[in-house]
């Protein structure tokens, strides 16, 4: 099952490699990982999208907590949360395709952020499955390049992760 794990960790050199090293050493999956400093520059906030049985997820959160630089760990999927991913897609856009591509971008609430004679670059945000759906919906051969940030997530309402 898919899980989104959020963690706060000390913004120190090497902290990221400890997290990544833990996943590879113990054979856990990382589907995506995003990290950046928070408003408090001494802290980084990381979102890891992973999958595994309940036992495995329990071990992942325990081992993350055990890392000295990790301050807090929360499995967002245990409660209500929202997730967003930013995706940039460069697509071929010539002739009739230009109109079609524009319409598809509108349907998915995407924006065109770069235009050339032959291509558009689209910006889409949404949960991971929405971005997947967009890639499914357009002509695959039109895709020139895709870059995705991976999910970042936050709890809903009163669910607040802070130190």
């Amino acid at each position, binding site marked *: 099952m898919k899980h989104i794990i959020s963690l706060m*960790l*000390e*913004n*120190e*050199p*090497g902290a990221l*490699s*400890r997290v990544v*090293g833990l996943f590879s*050493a113990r054979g856990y999956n990382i589907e995506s990982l995003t990290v950046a400093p928070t408003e408090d520059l*001494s802290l980084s906030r990381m979102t890891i999208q992973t999958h595994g049985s309940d*036992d495995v997820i*329990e*071990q992942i959160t*325990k*081992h993350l*907590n*055990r890392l*000295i*630089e*990790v*301050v807090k760990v929360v499995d967002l999927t245990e409660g209500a949360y929202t997730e967003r991913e930013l995706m940039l897609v460069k697509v071929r856009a010539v002739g009739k395709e230009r109109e079609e591509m524009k319409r598809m971008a509108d349907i998915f609430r995407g924006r065109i952020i770069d235009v050339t004679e032959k291509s558009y670059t689209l910006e889409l945000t949404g949960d991971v499955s929405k971005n997947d759906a967009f890639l499914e919906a357009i002509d695959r051969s039109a895709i020139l390049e895709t870059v995705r940030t991976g999910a970042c997530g936050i709890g809903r309402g009163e669910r607040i992760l802070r*130190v």
Partner: protein
Amino acid sequence: MEKTLAEKTSAAPVSGQSKDLMGAEILVKALLAENVKYVWGYPGGAVLYIYDAIFKQDNFKHVLVRHEQAAVHAADGYARATGDVGVALVTSGPGVTNAITGIATAYMDSIPMVIITGQVPTHAIGLDAFQECDTVGITRPIVKHNFLVSDVRDLAMVMKKAFHIARSGRPGPVVVDIPKDVSFKKTPYEGYPADVQMRSYNPVRKGHGGQIRKALQLLMSAKRPYIYTGGGVLLGNASQELRTLVDMLGYPCTNTLMGLGAYPASSPKFLGMLGMHGTIEANNAMQHCDVLLAVGARFDDRVIGNPKHFAQNERKIIHIDIDPSSISKRVKVDVPIVGDVKDVLVEMIDMIKESAQKPDAKALAGWWETIEGWRSRDCLKYDRANQTVIKPQFVIETLHNMTKGTDTYITSDVGQHQMWAAQYYGFDEPRRWINSGGLGTMGVGIPYAMGIKLAKPDSEVFCVTGEGSVQMCIQELSTCLQYNTPIKILALNNRYLGMVRQWQEVEYESRYSHSYMDALPNFVKLAEAYGHVGMLIERPQDVEPALREARKLKDRTVFLDIRTDPLENVFPMVQAGKGITEMLLGSEDL
């Protein structure tokens, strides 16, 4: 730009009283403040300022080993025997890579250590400088934590944190990597930090009261209770509490390889070690109990065998451990209690004293009867009367009989001799049995022994080893002479890598692929070449007199080359992947 730790925590303003000190001097002051008495190490280019600072002090003693691996092992052995943090010091590059085996050994057994490593100067890091390696990167998966000190102003606080992390919570080794320029640069020194606060690291001590109460309910209503304890009881200095609890309840108790000595082997309530080479009674009780209290143990593969087989019998499991990630890792636990084992056991004992509930005496009597049935099979019996060939078990039993009740430490290497020592030397006291359980590192025996002997000069220290293992750190015989750490080495020499040969016999149709050692050195002459005493023992009747003679040579290291039965195997044995009750009891089962 990343701020340095000093900038972030610039709590103490620089007062007029402060003195400018070099990084190396601050390091030496930190070790003094942490009450370090011994440092095992090996100098090299990147640590020369540190060695210069060590030269100018006499607060702690530095031991020059012959190989960096042994420096870490010796400090590790010292930590296991005393409970203090062991300290090793090595140079950059090969100094670090040689130390890796030692660090991983300590990590697997949760031993509190601080390993100080030299690094090339900060401006050279990343440029493939001479003797450079990414120490923090290489050691990351085998340490509790590590630091690269990039600013001399951080050094005192990093040392404080390193010792704090190493000894608190579930202990473990911490590496502090110090670039050469950091040990050379000067900074105002305000004194060693009095305490340390880390928002990201606050290990729990006290167990959850509700969980402890729940555990007691289960324990008291048990029909077939069993207490299974591991290295955590020794690390947590909770042997006394364990003894009190077991004796109050009258329940059977077993220790893992790492936990031997926590409960006295001579007590009838002790069923022996459990696991791959555990006794029938210890393993059967594990499988057939209805309530299991696990304390500071981790249900590893050498202890419970195949987890599917283990799960075939229903039982309720209570697990006390300071590390939440050890709980429900290999088996599902019903009542987890996260906390310091000593604190939790004390609380449990207090609750039992107040409780009106008593163990079910009738059920318990029946359970003991079953256990005695298993015990009566005497699974550790062997050909004691053999007059022609020395049985390895006989050597250990003889050693035990001669040293019982005395101030003695036994270290071992890894292999058959280690299992025989664990099975036949009845450890009655904690921290007396020193071996590499988790990583299973051959070569630890001599360095462990010399580390202990230095700290405990009045105790007798025996290293039980084999002719294979002992050659993996034999160069330390030289260190033993220089620092006057007279140890007694019992090499059970069967000319085979015995445990490998045993597995080949059991699982590979006796194809002894590369497990025979030809061209062994003359160990007697080798010991003499190192300035020690060597003895060759070839007949069973010579074992005891030789040991007596060796013990008389209090000030000498003695190497006893004991020629044992080459084909003897360790029994009982549970093959890999089998259940713990599916035991081979002797060669007739092969």
